[in-house]
């Protein structure tokens, strides 16, 4: 085996800031290499240099022993390096095959005698045929005529992979490929990676999920704070704990420690027969019922796009329901507007933090009061008390360990973890009865994740209720007391978080299994 990609002293700087420092990396032909590291460790910068999106400040890149310079992804693809991004780059209104051939379409040819004339029109029929053959060759389950917008996340990922294989790349880079998949889909992907390896493909996986790395990588490179710490062979000595320690630079508790305080009996949030339709008229939330008690965290497990987003919108007053009721300590709160909900004690950590949770260009101090800005502490007779707002900021920054560079920078200058802490600080400091949190630690580094988890658990122990949606199954399982599984807008299972297994949850998430009688609906329904 020989090195197919080699990086020598690769350095990338942005102004005064060094994102990648003196990286030496060598990937062998035909191996599966994992590159792990925390969010912001420099993995993506490194891959972007391999893929021609960024150009190194110093150092050189070798492909099959030859020095190369990629000025754009196109150069990289032509050389034989393809990348599947974490956020897929597909055009939703085009079909599967149109997306796969995008950029290198085949034109119709006109035959006159022996001469072939290229017409300027695209030959859709032939493209479709070629893609169909490709799908068969790699045994992917896809229909070339489906529009991307109708496909599941897993299928979109397969389209992205095929898009690269169609371009006959030798090296396939997968950026956080399992972040959005359910356990079964992850297994399938790992199997596909093994297949590709057998067919001679070199695969590089960027991830921070250690279990999956253990399952499919041959070798593992660890990055931390812009540097390549080490590359080790994936053997029994490379335990998850050891890898985590290498990533973070200190021993890490991979498990959350709960207080063990028992769940209370008084219901806080009671949701009954809640339903809603989307803009196309399809029912996306179907007859959902559950109860959350004092001292309880209810986790929602489910594949993304099965109604979690809409359920969250309904509970936070952003979407119209078609039926149902939501009671907070026996007060009906369905159809209340977001400001009324906050007044009644509903704290919200929205799924899309940068669109709904934070105003990027407003300073931290202003973000820390939004939604609560008319409370008498900050606002007297319609006039804002900016002194008090600054004081509040100083308190919150201290209490919630929000790390800011300047005195009061705009939120856009904060890292993902610190930005999320701003939301957590805002919502928790205003004394909610129930906290509705969606994806509270997505894209957040390990340190901030630990902090956010502890804050949520502390709130629970104060006798409050927490509703937690997360696509990280391990997060749901480790934080929640009880888990409900949502599939196709319906609650299909309810479990004690302690005793249920990942595989069991996966079966319900995929819709393969379903409970007949759900406990949550009993009693006062």
């Amino acid at each position: 085996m020989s090195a197919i990609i080699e990086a020598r002293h690769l350095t990338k700087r942005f102004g005064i800031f060094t994102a990648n420092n003196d990286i030496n990396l060598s990937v062998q032909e035909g191996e599966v290499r994992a590159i792990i590291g925390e969010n912001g460790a420099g993995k993506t910068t490194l891959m972007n240099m391999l893929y021609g999106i960024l150009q190194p400040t110093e150092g050189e890149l070798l492909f099959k022993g030859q020095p190369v310079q990629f000025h754009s992804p196109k150069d990289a693809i032509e050389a034989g390096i393809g990348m599947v991004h974490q956020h897929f780059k597909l055009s939703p209104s085009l079909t599967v095959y149109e997306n796969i051939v995008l950029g290198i379409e085949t034109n119709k040819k006109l035959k006159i005698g022996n001469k072939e004339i290229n017409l300027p029109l695209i030959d859709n029929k032939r493209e479709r045929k070629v893609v169909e053959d490709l799908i068969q060759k790699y045994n992917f389950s896809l229909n070339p005529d489906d529009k991307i917008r109708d496909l599941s996340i897993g299928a979109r990922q397969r389209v992205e992979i095929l898009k690269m294989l169609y371009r006959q790349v030798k090296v396939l880079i997968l950026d956080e490929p399992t972040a959005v998949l359910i356990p079964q889909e992850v297994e399938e992907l790992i199997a596909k990676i093994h297949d590709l390896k057998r067919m001679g493909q070199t695969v590089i996986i960027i991830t921070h999920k250690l279990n999956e790395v253990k399952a499919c990588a041959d070798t593992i490179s660890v990055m931390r704070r812009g540097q390549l710490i080490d590359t080790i062979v994936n053997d029994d000595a490379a335990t998850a704990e050891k890898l985590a320690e290498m990533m973070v630079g200190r021993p890490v508790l991979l498990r959350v420690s709960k207080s063990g305080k028992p769940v209370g009996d008084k219901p806080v949030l009671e949701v009954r027969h809640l339903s809603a339709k989307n803009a196309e008229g399809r029912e996306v939330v179907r007859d959902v019922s559950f109860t959350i008690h004092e001292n309880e965290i209810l986790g929602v497990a489910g594949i993304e796009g099965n109604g979690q987003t809409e359920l969250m919108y309904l509970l936070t007053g952003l979407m119209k329901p078609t039926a149902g009721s939501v009671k907070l300590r026996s007060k009906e709160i369905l159809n209340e507007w977001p400001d009324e909900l906050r007044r009644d004690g509903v704290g919200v950590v929205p799924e899309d933090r940068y669109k709904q949770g934070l105003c990027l260009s407003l300073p931290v101090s202003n973000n820390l009061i939004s939604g609560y800005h008319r409370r008498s502490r900050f606002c007297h007779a319609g006039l804002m008390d900016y002194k008090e707002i600054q004081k509040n900021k100083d308190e919150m920054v201290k209490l919630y360990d929000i790390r800011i560079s300047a005195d009061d920078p705009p939120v856009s200058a904060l890292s993902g973890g610190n930005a999320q802490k701003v939301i957590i600080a805002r919502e928790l400091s205003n004394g909610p009865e129930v906290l509705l949190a969606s994806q509270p630690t997505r894209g957040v580094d390990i340190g901030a994740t630990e902090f956010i988890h502890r804050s949520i658990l502390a709130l629970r122990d104060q006798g409050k209720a927490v509703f937690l949606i997360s696509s990280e199954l391990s997060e749901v399982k480790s934080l929640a007391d009880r888990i409900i599984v949502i599939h196709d807008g319906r609650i299909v299972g309810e479990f004690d978080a302690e005793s249920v297994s990942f595989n069991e949850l996966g079966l319900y998430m995929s819709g393969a299994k379903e409970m007949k009688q759900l406990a949550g609906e009993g009693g006062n329904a």
Partner: protein
Amino acid sequence: MSDNLKRRSIPVLNAVIPLAFAFALGAIFTMIAGYNPLTVYGLILKTAFTSGGGWMQTLGFACPIILTGIATAFAFQSGLWNIGVEGQLYFGAFAAALVGAGYFGLDCIPVGLQMPLSVLAGILAGMLYAAIPALLKAYLNANVVVTTIMLNYIAIELTEFLTKAFFQGDQSYDSTYAIQETAEIPKIMSRYRVSYAIFLAVAIVLVVWFVSRRTSFGYEISAIGRQLEFSEAVGMRVRKKIVLIFLISGAIAGVAGATEVLGVNKNFMPNFSTNPGLGWQGYYVAVLAHNNPLAVLLIAIIFGGFRYGSIAVQSKLGVPLDLLNIIQGALILFYSIKYFHENKEKIQKHLKKANPAKKEEQQNA
């Protein structure tokens, strides 16, 4: 220290460079027409800004621009592209002229109330007309720029039609009857254009400034203007606010129209605001002022001076007034580019993209 100086000079440079470009372009056009640009520019400045009388005229021309500027800026800072100030101004002027002239038997209004009620009529008309794009935006999400510009055309055509068909006065040109003398807004000095409305304009600027800076409504406006979905998600009731903001903007536009009729023109003439129109000048001012109310005041006064100076230049030298419109249009065009970036912000963006962990480490140190 020098770094600080550099950073401070950036906004100044970003403001001066477009000014230089715009006047250079204006100079080219002046020379095409066979005039010396220095003479022309010199005369404009001298007429407008070097004598007490010049200042009085300048303020007279600035007064409606201050109002349309602040009306536009108030909507713009909430992210609402209300280009319809022109149309709202037309209806404000029209309504004020009708009430002031005592149409519909309104000449029975007691003397002391005529002027305030005429202004109020202007305000209501402006608000009502602004309600149309407001509702279209809030409930149908129609493109505000397109609807407001269409409504401008409708306002101009409709008031012309109404004037000619129903309210033609005794002048030889198309216009309504003149307002009653008792409904006029008195001039500060009878020789000069400026009326006491200028104090109203300045007061409105200060109120808008105070509301945007200090009140919870102002806080919400700034959030809505920056990020709509966020504002809604944290409970600011964006639909209602959009309508409210439009109504306020329209009300100020109505004041502009009313004071122009009651203080200067004394009657409503179709197309009284053209080339390019007081609403459009307000748009220029708002863009250049970055929607800052105090900057609106300053720039509107400068624009008022340019207008007065250019009118003098047109009558003395024969350079068409369109020259000023060319310069103003070019000014906005060149102003739309940032010539120097404040590097700091740019780097921070990269930092965020590339490596948040690293940055935290630096901050801890």
